[in-house]
């Protein structure tokens, strides 16, 4: 036990240093830098939303004003116009960023916790554990993603928690497959044999020996998956199955505007731009990270 305690303390600081170094690594790839810049922009918007001089995102002002128009009393400018209910589109975009980032982050995190646990056990234990977990994963992956989302959410209702649950159902099996594949390769390494010879338990080996060494590919996948989850949340919002109104949701903003036709084109195009740019940020970062990891 004493040996374990010492290891933990000595590893805490280098871990932090490694995290900072890995940010510096981004400089090697312009693609990753571009992705990180887009993500930083949206992250800053999401964090600063309460501090920015924005109208209340749910407050009806003047309906269907075009972009760059000035309010009737001349005190406010609608930089991106207003939607059919007269709410400020810019404000709804920025508050929408906050919402999608929080829930996409939580949902991806939940999917990762479940997927990693399943993958570690299936890969390291093997045998019946692997058979059963792999079958469950295949079962869930046999649903087209959107069908799974629609069936689960119409059945259990569209609350934020249920959406996290649905994303976990849909994403955890794919994460499990990746982790399982990595573990099958890593478990034959000498350091795993050494840990087993030291008499470490299975849980220790999975969490301390295997998981940290699988982090590279998982990091790339996590970026991609944040993009998928963003798409999923916004698509559910568009289908009326997303996070509940009236708080802004990029997908729902498009669905509300679409029947209005040409008068409301701006209230449809800006949310579409927002969601596409955010997903682009995740995809560029993932692509850049993959490129960097292949170079080493």
């Amino acid at each position: 036990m004493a040996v374990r305690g010492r290891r933990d303390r000595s590893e805490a600081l280098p871990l932090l240093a490694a995290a900072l170094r890995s940010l510096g690594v981004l400089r090697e790839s312009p693609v990753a830098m571009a992705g990180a810049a887009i993500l930083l922009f949206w992250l800053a918007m999401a964090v600063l939303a309460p501090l920015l001089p924005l109208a209340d995102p749910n407050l009806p002002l003047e309906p269907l004003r075009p972009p760059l128009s000035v309010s009737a009393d001349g005190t406010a400018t609608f930089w991106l116009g207003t939607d059919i209910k007269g709410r400020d589109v810019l404000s709804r975009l920025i508050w929408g960023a906050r919402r999608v980032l929080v829930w996409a982050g939580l949902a991806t995190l939940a999917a990762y916790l479940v997927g990693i646990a399943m993958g570690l056990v299936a890969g390291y234990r093997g045998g019946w554990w692997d058979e059963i977990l792999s079958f469950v994963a295949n079962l869930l992956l046999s649903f087209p993603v959107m069908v799974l989302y629609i069936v689960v959410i119409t059945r259990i209702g569209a609350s934020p928690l249920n959406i996290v649950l649905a994303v976990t159902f849909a994403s955890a099996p794919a994460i499990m497959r990746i982790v399982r594949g990595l573990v099958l390769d890593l478990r034959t390494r000498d350091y795993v044999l050494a840990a087993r010879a030291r008499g470490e338990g299975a849980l220790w080996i999975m969490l301390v020996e295997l998981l940290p060494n699988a982090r590279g590919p998982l990091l790339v996948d996590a970026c991609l998956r944040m993009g998928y989850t963003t798409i999923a949340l916004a698509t559910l919002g568009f289908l009326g199955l997303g996070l509940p109104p009236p708080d802004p949701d990029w997908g729902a903003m498009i669905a509300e505007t679409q029947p209005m036709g040409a008068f409301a084109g701006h209230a449809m195009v800006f949310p579409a731009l927002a969601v596409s740019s955010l997903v682009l940020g995740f995809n560029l970062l993932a692509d850049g990270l993959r490129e960097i990891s292949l170079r080493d």
Partner: protein
Amino acid sequence: MLKLALRRFGAMVLIMAVVSFLLFLIFESDKLAVAGKVLGPYSSIEQRELWLEKEGYNRPFLVRYGEWVADALRGDFGQSIRFKAPVSDLLWPRLANTAILAGLVFALMIPLSLTLGVLAGMREGSLLDRLLSFLSIGTTSIPEFASAAFLVALFVFELRWLPGTSSMTGGFDWRQLVLPVAVLVLYDFGYVARMTRASMAEVMTSPYIRTAVLKGLPRHRVILGHALRNALIAPFTVIVLQLNWLLSGVIVVEVFFAYKGFGALLYEAAMFGDIYLIEACTMVAVFVAVFSQFLSDVGYTLLNPRIRFAREGG
């Protein structure tokens, strides 16, 4: 080979069986809720009890499940609550409409993505190669409903070239198909093109291509006669598996453009809580997904001589 196909087929049947059981469990284990859905919210408990007794719902769960499966295999999925018509009468025309949409998408996407992928993979790092990876990251980042919004804003609101809905109420009109097909092709082609490019690039660095080049074969014969055959194996599986992705995109596109297809039917059924229709649509969707998986597995083995002979030898 036959053994592998049979094993895959067995796995497919098993998955379908478990999915159908789970669906039945989720939607029909609560009998009173089913009766409430069918008879409407204002039906009394007595009416519901009577209906359940008449329809045989008071028999054991497993007996009901067995009967449901037997009926479904004969093509009888029960009566739709919302449309007041047999589910099978609704399902087939909608599936045909979606098949038209999907067929057009594949007819455009496959030649486009294979050509671009092969050209880019032939010369890794060339201008075309970098352009393609740029383009495909871009298009795969735009969700279907967002690209639909862009295209509608441009071609419907600004230019007024195309209609913004595709409900086909006035008979078949090809102009109504342009935007839905474009949205789906845009979202899907990038991934297939990237896979083709990766496969082609890998083949181009293999020793047998170097041999062909060094023995003095003209470049087009190296590419057409030697490289393509092997480079197209991986994209084949990707394209077949794309069917699964397409089905998700089809739901969004059909809802956006009010196209009367299978995806919109599934969506309406789920939103309305039309139990028998949801069950039927979900089973069809899962069947398409699992069957395409089966086709891609077996097709890959058939196409790839390395796997084919290794299995026959062993």
